[in-house]
Structure formats: structure tokens, C-alpha cells
């Protein structure tokens, strides 16, 4: 039996499929993806990967596809990305899932950098889309299938061999409409061999509207390339946000990733990362500060498919009110992926009696000469530490704030870009400030 949301999605797909961008091949892929979704339906708690985030129960209705942003929507979205205003990033802005040229900065691109809106690339059968889209980390994940079926706009970024971007790229995704609707954005970033870049995504919207976001980013990190990727989730209080990162890392390349979430009613961040070349390094961090009835799920799969990979995962959740955090992390070491070094840590700090933290760190290992481990903790603030600070004259609230900042700071500090780091620590402090009232 189909739920109302599933039926609505099927109807929406039938209605819009002819209008979605892309040539015949893309249309076929959309149809196949939707069929795959349709066969499975929205994932529910009996589906192991979605055990703690039952979309079938949590998504009561599927919102209609967002219309192209009008002048008002664009005006409302103007302030988006303000959190990182001070870092001098090159902004590429999407409002209600569509590229907005007047809010983007595409002039004087550095040598080796090319940027195009995804809708345009799909419509014009861009060769990069044909060769790479959906091929970075192939997955049969339901959320990705849905994204592929409906994908509208997004960023197509290519950084040429050995090009080094001085300015961070900032993809701003804002919701500006005044009616509840759904957006499906899909981006593809290809960092060729030896390229270096900092890529930031931020997702935000108004508190009053129960809009829905399904966003996906495919990230190719070529051999020797260095990419830092930060995803900032500050969606509105009633938003449902499902995001997927699919990244592959080439030989001796480095990917550092941070997912920072404070906003959204229901958030699922999926990260599928595959080691494609030997000797690559990965840092996957997560930081959640949530309250009220927020539900944030960070699910990651790190696939060591080749020898000599090094990965570190650190997930920090701070929970207040009746919020719930979910961490599911899986490290896979394939046969032959010897000398893999993988460590995963998930920590939850429960500030309220009614918060809930669910951790599921997994190891799946098929090679013997490896060093893998994981740890998980859940608990309240350490009374001894609090006492120590209070004994030195620091008031309770301030002492708590200090300890919480130190707790999430660990996940943020690994970033290289000082400006981004400061902005996120500022956002954390702001969250703590709002908690006191």
C-alpha cells in the first residue's frame, strides 16, 4: 500500500517528467531512478539504513515541486549565506532550487575553474554530466534515486589539473518561496588531479514554512587533489532536509569534510565516500547542535576499496529539549585493501532528560593487515568539569557554554580555513546563546 506522500510523488513525477531538463538519455535515467524509488517506496524503520529515521512515518505529505523563484522570492533570499559573508568566498546562489545569476558571482573566474548551472548542463548534454553524473559513487539509495528522478538545478564545477583556488566556492541554497514546496538540487564537482579547493554548501530557509529539500552533491577528488568540503545546515524550523554526498578520493588525495547542522525539523545527511586510489586521506566530521523536537541523522559509509587508505571520522552531537540525534557510520575494508587505517568516533552530549542519541558505528572488514576501530559515547556534561569551572567563579550557564563549545569545537577545528572555522564557532556560540533564553 502506498502512503499519501508516495502517491503524490508518483503523480508529481508523471506531471513534470516531460518538463525536467535533459536529453533522452537523462530522461531514461530519471525514469529508471523513479521506478527504483517506486518499487521500494519511502524508507521505513524496517530498512536497516533508515532504522532510526523512518521517512514513511515522518514525511506525511510530499510537497509540490517548487516553482521558479519570482522577484519576491529572490528578495527574501538575498540575505542567505550571511554567516560566511566575511570570508570572501565566490557565491553561487540557488533560490527554491534554481540558479539565480544576479545573486551569484561568476565574473573573473580563476584560471582552471569553470562553473555552470546544472539545469543548463543537463539541457545542453554537457559531456562532463554524461561521463560523471551518477558515476562517482554509484548507489541504490532511495533518497538519491528520488533526487535523480526530479533533479532540477545545481552547480556543475570543474577545477582543472593542478589549479589552486584562492577563494572558497560557496554554494548557497536558499528557500525563498512563501508556499510550502519541494526542491531537488543536484551538483557535481570535479577536482582534477592535483587541484586544490575549499567548497562550502549552505542550506537555509524561513522558519514558518514546512518546505522539503532533497539535495545531492557528487564530488570527484582526483589523484593528489586536496578538497575541503563544509556543509552548513541552517534550514527553517519546519523544514525536512535530506542530503547526500557521494565522493570518491583518488591516490594520495585528501578530502576533509564537515557537516554542521543546527536547523531543520528533520535532517538526514548521508555521506558515501569511496577510496578510489591508494594512500588517500579522509577526515569526515559532523557537528550537530539541536533542540526542541529536531531530528538529525548523520549516516556515513566509508568504503576502503583500495590499500593504504587513512580515514578519521568524528561526529559530535549536542542535544537539548526533546531532540534526537542519529549517527550511523560504517567503515568497509574490502578484500585486498591492506594497510588501511580507519578510526571512527561518535559522541553525544545530552543536555536534557528527554533528548535521545542513537549511535550505530559499524566495521565491516575483509582484509587482515588493517588498523580499524570505533568508539561511541553518550552522556551528560561532566559534573567534575563543571565544578572545576564554577569553583573558579564562572557562573553555571557560562561554564556549560564553555564545555559545550569545547565539545563541538573538536569537530570544527580540523578545518584549515580560519574564516570558516570562526564563522562556525560563532554559529555554535549563537546557538548556545539562544538556549539560555
Amino acid at each position, binding site marked *: 500500500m502506498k502512503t499519501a506522500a508516495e502517491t503524490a510523488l508518483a503523480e508529481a513525477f508523471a506531471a513534470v517528467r516531460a518538463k525536467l531538463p535533459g536529453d533522452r538519455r537523462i530522461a531514461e535515467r530519471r525514469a529508471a531512478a523513479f521506478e527504483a524509488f517506486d518499487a521500494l517506496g519511502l524508507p521505513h524503520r524496517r530498512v536497516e539504513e533508515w532504522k532510526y529515521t523512518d521517512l514513511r512515518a515522518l514525511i506525511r505529505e510530499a510537497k509540490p515541486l517548487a516553482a521558479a523563484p519570482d522577484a519576491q522570492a529572490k528578495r527574501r533570499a538575498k540575505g542567505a549565506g550571511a554567516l560566511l559573508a566575511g570570508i570572501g568566498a565566490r557565491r553561487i546562489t540557488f533560490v527554491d532550487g534554481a540558479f539565480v545569476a544576479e545573486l551569484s558571482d561568476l565574473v573573473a573566474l580563476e584560471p582552471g575553474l569553470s562553473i555552470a548551472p546544472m539545469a543548463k548542463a543537463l539541457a545542453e548534454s554537457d559531456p562532463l554530466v554524461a561521463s560523471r553524473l551518477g558515476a562517482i559513487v554509484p548507489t541504490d539509495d532511495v533518497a538519491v534515486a528520488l533526487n535523480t528522478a526530479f533533479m532540477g538545478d545545481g552547480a556543475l564545477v570543474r577545477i582543472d589539473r593542478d589549479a589552486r583556488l584562492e577563494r572558497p566556492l560557496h554554494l548557497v541554497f536558499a528557500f525563498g518561496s512563501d508556499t510550502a514546496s519541494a526542491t531537488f538540487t543536484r551538483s557535481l564537482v570535479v577536482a582534477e588531479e592535483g587541484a586544490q579547493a575549499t567548497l562550502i554548501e549552505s542550506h537555509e530557509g524561513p522558519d514558518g514554512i514546512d518546505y522539503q529539500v532533497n539535495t545531492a552533491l557528487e564530488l570527484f577528488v582526483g589523484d593528489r587533489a586536496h578538497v575541503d568540503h563544509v556543509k552548513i545546515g541552517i534550514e527553517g524550523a519546519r523544514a525536512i532536509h535530506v542530503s547526500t554526498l557521494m565522493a570518491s578520493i583518488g591516490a594520495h588525495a585528501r578530502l576533509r569534510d564537515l557537516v554542521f547542522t543546527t536547523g531543520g525539523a528533520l535532517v538526514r545527511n548521508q555521506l558515501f565516500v569511496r577510496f578510489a586510489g591508494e594512500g588517500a586521506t579522509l577526515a569526515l566530521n559532523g557537528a550537530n547542535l539541536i533542540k526542541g523536537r529536531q531530528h538529525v541523522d548523520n549516516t556515513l559509509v566509508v568504503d576502503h576499496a583500495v590499500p593504504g587508505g587513512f580515514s578519521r571520522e568524528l561526529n559530535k552531537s549536542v542535544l537539548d529539549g526533546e531532540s534526537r540525534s542519529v549517527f550511523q557510520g560504517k567503515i568497509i575494508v574490502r578484500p585486498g585493501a591492506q594497510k588501511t587505517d580507519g578510526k571512527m568516533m561518535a559522541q553525544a552530549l545530552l543536555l536534557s532528560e528527554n533528548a535521545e542519541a542513537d549511535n550505530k558505528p559499524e566495521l565491516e572488514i575483509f582484509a587482515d593487515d588493517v588498523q580499524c576501530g570505533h568508539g*561511541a559515547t553518550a552522556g551528560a556534561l561532566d559534573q567534575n568539569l563543571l565544578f572545576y569551572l564554577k569553583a573558579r567563579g564562572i557562573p553555571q550557564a557560562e561554564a556549560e557554554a564553555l564545555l559545550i563549545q569545547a565539545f563541538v569545537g573538536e569537530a570544527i577545528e580540523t578545518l584549515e580555513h580560519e574564516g570558516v572555522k570562526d564563522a562556525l564557532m560563532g554559529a555554535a556560540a549563537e546557538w548556545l546563546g539562544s538556549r539560555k533564553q
Partner: protein
Amino acid sequence: MPAVQETVEQVRRIDVDQYKYGFVTDIESDKAPKGLSEDTVRFISAKKDEPEWMLAWRLDAYRHWLTMREPRWSRVDYPQIDYQDLYYYSAPKRKAGPKSLDEIDPEILKTYAKLGIPLREQEILAGVEREGTYSRVAVDAVFDSVSVATTFKEELKKAGVIFLPISEAIKQHPDLVRKYLGSVVPVTDNFFATLNSAVFSDGSFVYVPEGVRCPMELSTYFRINEKNTGQFERTLIIADKGSYVSYLEGCTAPMRDENQLHAAVVELVALDDAEIKYSTVQNWYPGDAEGRGGIYNFVTKRGDCRGRNSKISWTQVETGSAITWKYPSCILRGDNSRGEFYSIAISNGRQQVDSGTKMLHLGKNSSSRIISKGIAAGKSNNTYRGLVSAHRKATGARNFTNCDSLLIGDHCGAHTVPYIEAKNASTVFEHEATTSKISDAQLFYCRQRGLSAEEAVALIVNGFVKDVLQQLPMEFAVEAQKLISISLEGSVG
């Protein structure tokens, strides 16, 4: 260290294909017709001369089982089991209860002689009591599906401890059985437990009265002998207020080409201030090097810390079975109750292990501790799967989990799947897991001092699992240590 030296000798003597307990005892047996139907259930119940309520209970289970589907979520792989192609009841034929050695079927005695573990003295098993020379362990032997002998009955009676085959307990202590049977693992719990509820043929029943410390270790020995037979035993242990009991089960089965099914249910109930220590040394036939034959060990084990300050401790050494699929669990219902799980799971050849525990914290200040050591060698897969959860009202719940895996060879897999669910702020949960191989530095150190590669591995592995071995009753710790080395034979070099 004499124990290690002994281990090394064992390893030399025994080849991986020569399963030590792979013999068939040729004894006449009394079987139910093949297949499963209401008639089979009625047949078993009638054989056991059971009261009407017990038959009704079984039939309930059977009817519910018909509506259930076999679970497939675990990381094990096996062909579809044809439940109609099994015998659900097989009992060794015998004249009367064994009162002296002469009355015991000589074939059974021969079996015991070959076994050694965990039964040292055939005489103990046969019911001939003689104190002093051997360890004082009361044994209940379950042969295929029927309990054949229970020892030390008199002495246990003096202490007030009831230690009986469960079929006897149903007749002699119906009130106790009715009160507790199915209260920890409900009839409808899961596919295999429900099947067991319908067709279980025997098992052990233990009741330790209030304030009694059971004067000796209790032990059950399970053996599957008959071909094509499923073994479905049922164990129920109740420790009344302030009592203590330590219980050990050991299992072996003969070498057979086809797979045999073992689906047991164990229920433990600990009331206020009571403590139950349950140890398992499982050495069912693991199949040959190509993965033919072996036991499917699909077991439901659960303990209920029902009273305040109660404690249940599971210790398991799992070296046998083609597939081991079990999660001895603790429901920590009472305030200040404590659950422990110590496990060594070794897989070699083509064995598959998916095992772990569940610690469900419901009572205030309940605490639990999980130490799991998995060792995978050959082409085996070894998975730890565990759940630790704290209910909203379980304030002050505390858990520490440590699961380490050791990989020997590059064709095996070691996996860890923990679920950690904290539903209130005052819980403190800590979990750590590591996976690695035996370090070259350690091996080199041992080799440099003149140990062979196999001796070195045996030494290091025994060190790796020491934390768990220490939890076993002394007599069994030595046996277990040997078993570990035997299981790993052929994995190095």
C-alpha cells in the same frame, strides 16, 4: 606455562578436518515421524506425558509460527531450510532410569568416554556418585532431544535446589514452570524461539530457592547424535531472592555431511539480590574445510534481571557450528541490576558467526558490561552485533562495551555492528571496538625467543582472549583454552 604447552601439543595432534567429537554413537533411538505439523506437536507432548495446558501452549506457539517468516537480516548465508525434512523428536531408547553404571547403554558410555569435555567422569554422568577425585559439577546430559541423566540429585535436594530435565519439572513443579516459562522469551518472540516453543523436547530446569547459594556448578551437556534431527532444547533457570547459581552448558555433535538445526531457548530469571552466572562452551561440529555439514546454531538466550540488585552474567566460548546466530541478552528491569556479557567467538574454515548481546536498561542505576573478542581465520566471517539501550526512566544507566576483533589471514571477515541508544541524559555509555591482525612485532618477539609460528599465535591469541577466559569456571577455562587453539589449527603458516 603448562596450559599453553598443552595447547601447543593439542594443536600438533589434531588436524582441522579431524573434528575431535565427530563420531556417531550407534544407539537405538525413538523418533517422531519426519516433518512438522500439529500432529508432531501432539506426538511430542504425548511422548512427554504432558498436562493439557502444556499442549495448549505448544499448539499456540505452532499456530503462531505458521504466520511467521524466517528472519534474514543477519550476516549469515545458508540455503533455505526445509522444515518438513527434519525429525523434531529423537530419543535414545532405554529401559529405565540409570541407577548404576551397569544400567547405562554401553554405547552411550563409549560416547562419554570419547568426549572428555565437559564431562570428565562417565560415572558422574551415569549417576554414580563418588566424591573427592573429580570436580563437583552436577550434570544434566541431553542426548539428541532427551535428557538422559542428571547427577548429584540428592545433594542438590538437600540444599533445596531443583535441577531437573524440564519435562520432569513440568510434571513435578507445574506451578513454577507455568509461572516462568515464556515469561522472558515470549511464545511469539521470534521465528526460531516460537518454533522451539512448539516442539521443544527437553532441557534443564533449575530453581534455586530464596537465600540459597547453589552448592556446586550445574551443567548441561547437549549432543546431537541422530541424523536429520533438529535439536530444540529449552532451559529455564530461576534464581529466587538472594540466591546464586552458576550454570554451564557444553555442546558437541557428530560429523555429518548435511546440516543439522539447533534452535534452543534459554530463559533466566533473577529476582531481588539474586545472581545467575551462565557459561557456554559451544563446540558443535563446524562442517568440513569446504563448508559441508555442520550445525546451524540459531539460539535465543535471554535473562531477566527482574529484581532489585539482581545480576546476570553470560560467558560464552563459541568455537563450533557452521553458523552461530545468537545474542544472549539481559533485560535490566530491576533498579541497580547488572548485566554482563563475556564472549569469545572463533571462526575458521567457512564458519559464520553473527553473535553479540543486548543490554536493555529499564531500571534505575542499572549497569552493564560487554567484552567481546572475535577471532576470524580461514574463510570465515565473524560479526559482533549488539544493542545497548537505556529507557527514559533508566536514570543513571551505565554501560561499557569493548569489542575487539582479530583477523588471521586475508580471506576472512570481521565485522562490528553495535546499536547504542541513549534515551535520557543521565546515562553514560561508552563503546570501543578495534580490529587488527596479530602484530608482526609481537610475533617476531615470540619467534626470536624460539617459539614456532603456531606456538606464537596460540600464545598471543590466548592473551587476546584472557579477559573472557578469566570469567569461566576454572575447570572449563582450561578446556576452553585448548578448544581455542584447536579451532585455530591450520590458520597460520
